[in-house]
C-alpha cells in the first residue's frame, strides 16, 4: 500500500546521488535528498538524522539500508514537516518592520547570515541573485515567496 510507494520515492531520490550504483551516497548529499522528498529540516535536525544513519566509523558515505528505515519513518510520521507558506510570508513581514513591502539586501543579509542557522556568504549571494530586483536593488519578498513556494520551481 502506501508503504511501498513511499519506499520507491525514497529509493528514486537516493539513486540520483548514488553515482556508483552501489547503494551509497556521499553524506554531504543527504540534506539535499531529504529536502527533495519534501521535508524541511533545520540544520540541527539534519545533523541529528545523519548521526542516526551514519556508519559506526563515519566514512563519508551513507548506505541505503540505513537511510531507508529512518527516512520512511520521517515520511510516514510527517516529521520535519513543511513550513506553511503563509508563515514564510509572515517571516518576511516580521523582518519588514516598517511594512514597506520590500527589504533592503543589506538588512536581509544581516538577518540571514547572523541569525538562526546562518547562511554562508555563498548561500546569501545566491539567494540575493534570485530575490533581488536588480533595478531597484530591493527584495520584493511577496514575489520571492511565491516563487519559492511554487510546486516545482521551474
Amino acid at each position, binding site marked *: 500500500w502506501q508503504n511501498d510507494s513511499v519506499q520507491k520515492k525514497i529509493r528514486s531520490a537516493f539513486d540520483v546521488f548514488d553515482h556508483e550504483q552501489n547503494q551509497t551516497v556521499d553524506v554531504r548529499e543527504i540534506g539535499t535528498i531529504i529536502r527533495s522528498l519534501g521535508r524541511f*529540516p*533545520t540544520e540541527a535536525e539534519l545533523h541529528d538524522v545523519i548521526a542516526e544513519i551514519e556508519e559506526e566509523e563515519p566514512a563519508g558515505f551513507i548506505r541505503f539500508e540505513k537511510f531507508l528505515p529512518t527516512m520512511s519513518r520521517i515520511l510516514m510520521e510527517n516529521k520535519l514537516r513543511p513550513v506553511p507558506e503563509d508563515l514564510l510570508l509572515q517571516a518576511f513581514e516580521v523582518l519588514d518592520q516598517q511594512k514597506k513591502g520590500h527589504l533592503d539586501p543589506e538588512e536581509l543579509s544581516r538577518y540571514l547570515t547572523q541569525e538562526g542557522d546562518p547562511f554562508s556568504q555563498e548561500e546569501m549571494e545566491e539567494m540575493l541573485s534570485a530575490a533581488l530586483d536588480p533595478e531597484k536593488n530591493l527584495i520584493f519578498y511577496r514575489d520571492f515567496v511565491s516563487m519559492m513556494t511554487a510546486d516545482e520551481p521551474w
Partner: protein
Amino acid sequence: MGCGSSKPPEHKPKQLQLKKYDRASVSCPAATAMRAALLIQRWYRQYVARLEMRRRCTWNIFQSIEYSGEQDQIKLYNFFGFLMDHFTPASSERNLISHIFRESEVFQDAEWEPYFCYKSIDVPDMYTGPHLTFPLTVNIITELVEAFKHKQHLHARYVLQLLGETWRLLRILPNINEVSTFHSKEITICGDLHGQLEDLLLVFYKNGLPSVETPYVFNGDFVDRGKDSIEILLILFAFQLVYPNDVHLNRGNHEDHIVNLRYGFTKEVLGKYRVHGKKILKLLQKIFSWLPLATVIDQKVLILHGGISDTTDLKLIAKLERNRYVSALRPPKRPQALSSSDGNARFSGGDWDQYSIVGRRRVRSLTHSNPASSRRELQRRSLQNYSTRTGHNVEEELRERRRWAGLSASCERIHDLPSSDSDPDSGEVLETDAEEWKQIVDMLWSDPMSQDGCIPNEVRGGGCYWGPDITEDVLNRHNLRLLIRSHECKQDGYEFCHNRRVLTIFSASNYYEVGSNRGAYIRLGPDLNPHVVQYQASRSTRELTLRQSVGRTERSALRALREQVFAHKSDLTSAYEEFDPEHTGVISMKHWAVATETVLQLGLPWRVLREQLVGDSTQDGIINYNDWFRELALMDPNTELAHTGLLETMYRHHSNLETIFRIIDTDHSGLISFEEFRQTWKLLSSHLKMEISDKAISDLALSIDFNKDGSIDINEFMEAFRLVDCSHAQILISMNGGTSPDPPQPSSPS
C-alpha cells in the same frame, strides 16, 4: 535549535545590531527575528535542494548519453575488428573499412616531408587571414589569436607549416615532461577544452598568455565537440614552439583520429579545409601520437589526462615508444608473422555476446577481457595483412612466415596458438605490447571511483575505475604527492577526491549546455598547493540565476532524452507490451521504469524523471504509453517517422552511421555514392544484427533523393539528425528533396 555547531567559524552569530535603524521605533524582538530567519532559511534551503535534485538528474542524463556514445563508438570499433577477421579479403564490406586498419604511417619518416610539404601551396592574394612567418614570435601568435577571435581561418599552407614544426619538436620530447617551479614560477594547468575557443581565450584573459613567466600545462582533449578545435590546436602548438620549455601538452583520449571520426574534429577540419583537410588530418594523426603522455612537476605532482590503474608504472611509460600508439583504441602495429589456425580465428557463438549490451555495465572493455580472448583480440586487430588469417593451409602458412622472417625480430606471437613459432622471444614482445598498450589506455581513459580497488571502466568501454587505495599506492610508489587529471566534466570545473590526492580539472565551461557547468584552471606554485580559478564563458550565463540555469539545462537534457525515447519507440513498445499482455495500453509506473531502463540502458532514475518526461499521460501510478508516444509525436510533428522502422533505426544510430560514412569516404570528399550508402547500411545492419533487404535500402535511398546526381553530401544528410525542437519534419522534408531545412541550432550533444 539555534546555530549549528558545524558552521565554519566566520559565521558565529553576532549580537543583532541594527545600525541603520532606530532600535526604538523598529524594534524587532531578537527572538522573533531569529525565528523568522530560521523559517526563511529552512525554506530557502529546501528550495535549493529541489533545484539541486533537478540539476543532478539533468547532469546524469547528459553524462549517461555522452558515455553511452563513447561505449557505442568502441563497440562499433570492435565490430569493425570483428569484420576484418571474418570477411574474406575479397568482401566489399571489408574493403570499405580496411584502410583504417592499415598502417597509418604510410611513409617512412624520410618520405613524409615531401608529402606534407607546405611549400607547394600558394597563398592567394585575396586571402585576408593571418600570415605566419617562421620562426614564430609572440607578436605573430597574438595576431593569430586576434584573427581567430574574428572567426578567420589560418591558411592551409601555414597550418601545414606550423604542424610540421610542431611534429619536429614533439618527437624530441620525452613521454613524460618534467617541469620545475624554480624561480618561484607558478604553473597553470588547464583541463579539457574540447574545441571551445571562448574558454581558452577567457583563461588567457584572466591568467595571461603563455610565456616564460606564465608556464602552462594543457591536459589533453583539445579537440572534438566544440567548433574551434583546429584553432585551439594551432594556438597551443604555436605557443609551444615559441616557449618549448614553458608550454606542455599532454595527450587526451580525444587526440585520436578514430575518436575524431565520431566526435566532430574530422568533420570540422574537412569543412574548414576542403582542399587540404585530408593532409592536415593525416599529419595530425602523427602529431597526436607524438604528444607526451604526462607531465610531472617538481617530481611530486603528476598530471595526465584520464587517470591511473593498479598497474600504472611510470618507468614503463617513460620507456615505451609512444608514437606507435596512433590510436589508443588500437593495439600497436606489428608485422604479421603468423596466422592462427582457423579454429582460433573463428568465433564461437557465445562471442557475439560481446557486441550486445545486456546490462548497462556489461560491455566488454578493451583491456579487461579474459586473458584468452584478449590474446585472440590482439591478434584479430593487428594489422594489414589479413589474408594470412582466413582459409589458410599449412603450406601457405609457412610461406607467409618465411616472408616475414626477414623482418624485425619483434614478431607477434599468440600464446595460445598451437603452431610453433620460430622466434623464441616474440612471446615476450607480445606481452610488452599488451602491457604498454594497457598503460596508455589506462592513462587516457580511466576515471576515479570512491570504493577501493580497480575495475574495468565499462561505462566508457576503456580504461579502469580506480579507488583511493590505488591512488595511495601509485603515488607512494612513485614518491608523488598529487595527481591532477581531467577527462570528466565537473559542475564547478574541478573536483577533489581520494582524500584530496586526486584533482580533476575541466576547462570547458557550459559543456553540456549553456549554464551547465563552470570551467576552471589550476595555479600551482613552489609549495605545490593547487589553487583553483573558476570561470564561465558568456556573460549572459553568469547572470542567469540558479533556477534559470537549471531550468535551461534541464529542458535541453529532457529534449535529448525524449529524442532517445522516440528513437527507441518500437523496442519500448515491445517492452511495455510484455507487461501489458492484453494490450490495454497502460502499465504501472514500476513496470514502465523497468522496461524503459532495459531498452535504453542509460542507468537513469526513471521514476524521478517520470513527471517531466511523461507528463499528462500518467496518473495514480499508471502510465498510458500509447498516449505518451502520441504526445511525443505531437511535439515532433512527424508521426510517419514512427512507422518507418528503417528511419527510426537511422535516427537512433545516426552517430554510428556518420562514423561509418566518414570511414568509407576515403577521399574525404564529403560525398558518398549510392553504392557506398548501400554498403554502409549493410555494415550497420551487420553490426546491429538486423536484417535489411536491398530493396529496403533502395527505397530509402530513393526517398533521400539520390537520383539527382548519384551521391549524397554526408554533412547535409547528417544535419537532418541535429534535432532541436521540431526536426523529424525536417528529416522527411529534406529526404523528399524538398526545400532544405534551416540549419538547426546546435542541440544537445550527440
